[in-house]
Structure formats: C-alpha cells, structure tokens
C-alpha cells in the first residue's frame, strides 16, 4: 500500500514539472519563404506568435509595430534569443513570399508563415485562435479576415508559456520574455 502511495506521489511530482497548459499549443509546421518551417526547429529560442493577414490595414501593422517597439527594451543579447513569427491565416490570398516580405518590414528577423487551409485550421485550433474569411458585401476587398489579435509566447522547449492581448507599455510582457529567456 505504501509502495502504491509512493508511486502515486512520484507520478504527481513528475506531472508538476510538465507544461501546466498540457496539449495547448505545441509543435506545427507551416510554409515559409525558404520552405517548411517547423516550430521545434527553432527550439532553444523564445518564439512570439501573432496570427493575422497581410490585407489587414490597421490592426496587424499596428500590432507588429508595437511588438517591434517593445522588443527594443531588450538588450542585444536578449533580443537575439527571440524569434517573432507572423502567421497569415489568409490561406487564399497570402503566399509565404508575401508574408515574409510583410513581416520583415517590421524587423529583419521577423519570420512570415502561412499554409494550406487544413494546416492553418490545425495550428489555429492548437493555439485557440479564431479566424473566419468573411465576405464583405459591396466592398472591393471581397472578403476580410476576422481574427484573434493576441501574442503567444513559446518557451525554449517549444511549449506554450503565456499570451498577451496588449504588449505596448505592458511591463508584464517584457518581464515574461526575460523570464523565458533565462530558463
């Protein structure tokens, strides 16, 4: 009986060390300008994921420029440990080349990704991101993309660590980044 209890305690103790978010997030593979880009290939660095689309006139460029601005708070060594990733969920209009050019406008090391419909649906489901290609009646745009506006932080092991809706002037965001860099 004592043995069984000991085993149970050991199991519980080891569970504590695992990612408290369980299966939320996780590895994925999408198309980049240079071919397939897999999250786990950049393990060892802290990743910041943002989902959007390049036809986005306001929120995406605003969010990415705010991210760029906030990352300036980090010193060179810290900044080198961060990989910002912009994922376009507009699988109909965006190409890996377009998304990369869009992303690197904000900073040379921003990665731009997209994918086929099923790939985008899979990764957005993994990260709890909502998106919908919504027809815009009487608009030259044809359709817009409703999407979650949120920054997802991935630790060096490739596990989901935290997420933020607002990064500008948010001390917790930089604090969390520094914590993840130091892990």
């Amino acid at each position: 009986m004592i043995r069984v209890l000991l085993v149970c305690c050991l199991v519980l103790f080891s569970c504590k060390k695992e990612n408290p978010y369980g299966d939320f997030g996780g590895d994925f593979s999408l198309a980049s300008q240079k071919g397939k880009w897999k999250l786990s290939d950049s393990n060892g660095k802290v990743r910041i994921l943002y989902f959007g689309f390049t036809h986005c006139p306001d929120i995406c460029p605003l969010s990415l420029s705010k991210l760029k601005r906030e990352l300036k708070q980090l010193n060179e060594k810290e900044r080198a440990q961060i990989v910002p990733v912009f994922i376009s969920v507009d699988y109909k209009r965006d190409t890996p080349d377009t998304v990369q050019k869009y992303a690197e406008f904000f900073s040379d090391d921003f990665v731009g990704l997209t994918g086929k419909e099923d790939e985008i649906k899979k990764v957005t489901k993994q990260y709890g991101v909502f998106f919908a290609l919504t027809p815009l009646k009487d608009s030259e745009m044809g359709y817009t993309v409703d999407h979650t506006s949120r920054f997802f932080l991935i630790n060096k092991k490739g596990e989901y660590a935290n997420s933020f809706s607002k990064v500008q002037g948010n001390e917790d965001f930089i604090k969390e980044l520094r914590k993840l860099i130091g892990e």
Partner: protein
Amino acid sequence: MKIFLITILLSFGVMAEDYETNYEILNPWIREVPPVSKMSAGFVKIKNPSKKDVKLVAVNSDLSKTVELHTHGMVDGVMKMRKVPHINVPAMGEANLKPGGLHIMFINLKKKTIEGEKHNLEFVFSDGTKIKKEAVVK
C-alpha cells in the same frame, strides 16, 4: 437703397451660415504599411460646428484604386472589420476616425506608403460639401 441694404444683409446671412457649416478636418494621416501590402488605413478627426448633423459619405484619393469607409470592432478578442456606408458627424460634435475603430480604407494601393510623404484626400459630405486636405504617412 432699401433693396441694396436688404441684399447686403442677406449676403451676410448666407456668409454666416456658410461659416457655420465649415467642417474642420484635423490631423489626417495614413498608416505606413509594408511595401508588399495592398491595403492601408487613414485616420482623421472631423468637427462639425454647424447645427445640423452631417455624414461623411466618401473620401477621394489617388493613393489607391478604391477608397471605402470601414470600421473595426473587437468582439471577445477577435478583430472584425466591416464596411460602413457613411460616418455620422453630429451637429456641434465630431467624428473620430482612429486606429482600432472607424477608418478610411485604401484598397489596392497604387503607391507605396512612405513615412513623411503626403497624399491629397478629398472629404465628401452628405450636404455636398467637399474639402481637400493633405494627409501625412506615419
């Protein structure tokens, strides 16, 4: 002489009314977007000192093939953009087109948006008023 005076007074009346309906177009600006982007957004504050509500019904510009009026709304963390037919500018009030909300939507850009450059915009109101103003890219 009487007719002359009446004409003068009437003219002043018309002038005063014209002055009252002079809408103010304040700080119009256009968002700088990556050169690969086909869309951008414009923002402005419009003041209506008159005693009548008015609508901004269109904005003309040669920056893009099409210019529309759009709005944004955050619903449960999801950003949704929609086209609007016009933007109300209430009497003695203002309309504030700002990031994350109402905006001028430039669709299929013909030129790149470069920080500091200026583009001509023409604001068209429901009463037929048209006002030209330069907007800076930032």
